[in-house]
């Protein structure tokens, strides 16, 4: 619990992180969907929640939102216990479920007014507040339209607008960019990023680049267990050794001997580069010391022609797959 810090909020309640889970589990009958999950999300932090389908992401989101109650463990939102202090916790929370919860028969403005009223937005501020989220989510064009007439992209953004109403301290988003076109994805990410500067956001997704772009930390879960939680960069560093690839016209045996003599190169794999039989593609496993690419380049270029040299970092995708597959084989 090294990163745990306590704030005394204005209401007088002792609050830790904006979202905190301590040993949270969920069982349905004899089946355990979520096992002993513990992590925190701090104010001003966007945390990505990653996992394959059926990993327990949605169940976890539903527990944090208060829609379902954990079978065991403690769950707090903005310092309030989600089970015992449900109403207070719910006031601090904006939630976009996997499927946007919309009343098809209502108009967009009527729907937003309903949510604003339930969230106790003061009477005089309702209009301004609705205008704010309408603008942020680019819903001006459909303000007076019935919801059943909206396209999937608009429905998704209306779901997000609903979650942003009433300036919640914590935002829970279950796949917020699903069904959007690339332009809308960009805009939605901006909205989330701007919100996440001051508030806490937990964002479940399986679009990996999205996580690298906007999330400060990533939590990976599979089979209802937390496999890792850290910044994308730290996960990349810890995941596997970096790799240098190069293309040259050197003979394989001589090259391998030269490369393995370099301090820091652990493993050399050679294969023909594409259709050109004269060229050789080489993968070198290296350690993380700086300047190792330069040493390799110097050695190769002093005797042969070097056509290409590149240092590769493991992608989040490969890290994710590694964690998920490793967990799959052990469970």
């Amino acid at each position, binding site marked *: 619990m090294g990163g745990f810090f306590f704030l005394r909020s204005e209401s007088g309640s002792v609050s830790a992180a904006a979202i905190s889970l301590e040993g949270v589990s969920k069982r349905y009958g004899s089946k355990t969907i979520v096992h002993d999950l513990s992590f925190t999300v701090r104010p001003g932090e966007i945390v990505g929640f990653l996992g394959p389908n059926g990993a327990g992401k949605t169940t976890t989101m*539903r527990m944090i*939102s*208060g*829609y*379902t*109650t954990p079978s065991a463990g403690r769950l707090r939102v903005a310092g309030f216990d989600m089970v015992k202090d449900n*109403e*207070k916790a*719910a*006031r601090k*929370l904006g*939630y976009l*479920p996997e*499927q946007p*919860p*919309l*009343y*098809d*028969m*209502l108009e967009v403005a*009527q729907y937003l007014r*309903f*949510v604003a*009223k*339930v*969230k*106790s937005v003061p009477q005089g501020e309702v209009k301004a507040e609705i205008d704010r989220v309408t603008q942020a989510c680019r819903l001006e064009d459909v303000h007076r339209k*019935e919801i059943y007439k909206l396209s999937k992209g608009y429905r998704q953004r209306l779901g997000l607008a*609903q979650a942003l109403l009433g300036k919640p301290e914590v935002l829970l988003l279950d796949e917020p960019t699903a069904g959007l076109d690339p332009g809308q994805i960009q805009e939605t990410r901006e909205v989330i990023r701007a919100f996440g500067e001051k508030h806490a956001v937990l964002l479940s997704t399986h679009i990996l680049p999205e996580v690298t772009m906007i999330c400060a930390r990533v939590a990976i879960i599979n089979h209802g267990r937390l496999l890792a939680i850290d910044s994308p960069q730290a996960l990349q560093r810890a995941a596997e050794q970096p790799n240098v690839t190069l293309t040259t016209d050197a003979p394989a045996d001589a090259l391998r001997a030269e490369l393995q003599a370099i301090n820091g190169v652990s493993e050399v794999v050679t294969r023909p580069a594409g259709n050109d039989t004269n060229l050789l593609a080489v993968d070198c496993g290296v350690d993380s010391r700086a300047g190792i690419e330069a040493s390799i380049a110097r050695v190769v270029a002093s005797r042969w022609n070097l056509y290409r040299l590149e240092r590769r970092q493991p992608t989040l995708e490969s890290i994710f797959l590694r964690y998920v597959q490793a967990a799959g084989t052990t469970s």
Partner: protein
Amino acid sequence: MNGMLAVYQKELLSYFRSPIAYFVVAVFLIGAGYFFLYNVLIIGSAVMDETFQSMAILLITLLPLVSMRLFSGEYSARTMELLATLPLKPWQVVLGKYLGAVTILLLMLLATTVNLIPLYLYSEPQTLNIASGYLGFLLLGMACLAVGQFCSALTENQIVAALITMAVLLAFWFVGHLQQFQTASGGREFVRYVAFQPQFADFIRGLVRSEAVSMFAIVSAIALTLNASYLQWRR
């Protein structure tokens, strides 16, 4: 209070934006008009007993259509996830929805009062009997809606909700016949007390008995309490 009011307004908006409310009100008006014409023009009676009796059966077959969407609709549209995570207590959701449905019931009853105009123009009906008859309708309807709303919370399928409600309400209506088969006086008393039909019959005879009023109120209160507890338990 605010939350309950917001739910109430949302329910009313939803009713008038879907065809169901119009359909139910229209069918009830046509039926009531028909029973009324038959009674007044063919039988030649200015006493509303027969008309009210038939209208009550029509009412308990139509009200399940009003109540069926209250929760089933929320489940199937996945909006329950919103209602359950907004800062609302279960009783606020239950009462907001219930009052919305009761408003539709009031509109249905109010609309049938046009039938009374010719009655008052061409005869001298017993106003108190008619007033107590309408009070009976209101209490009966409120009990039906509370039962229907609870049944609606039990299933995601609106049709199933309506069918269960109809079965339960018809059972309440006709259970009075079982009185003759009960040998124990306790059983007989109980069946007599919960049977809708004889209790309602008192109202159309002009009798507002506290026993009948309390029975309808207790049935409503039990159904609404079960409804709120069920929502709480469902989490």
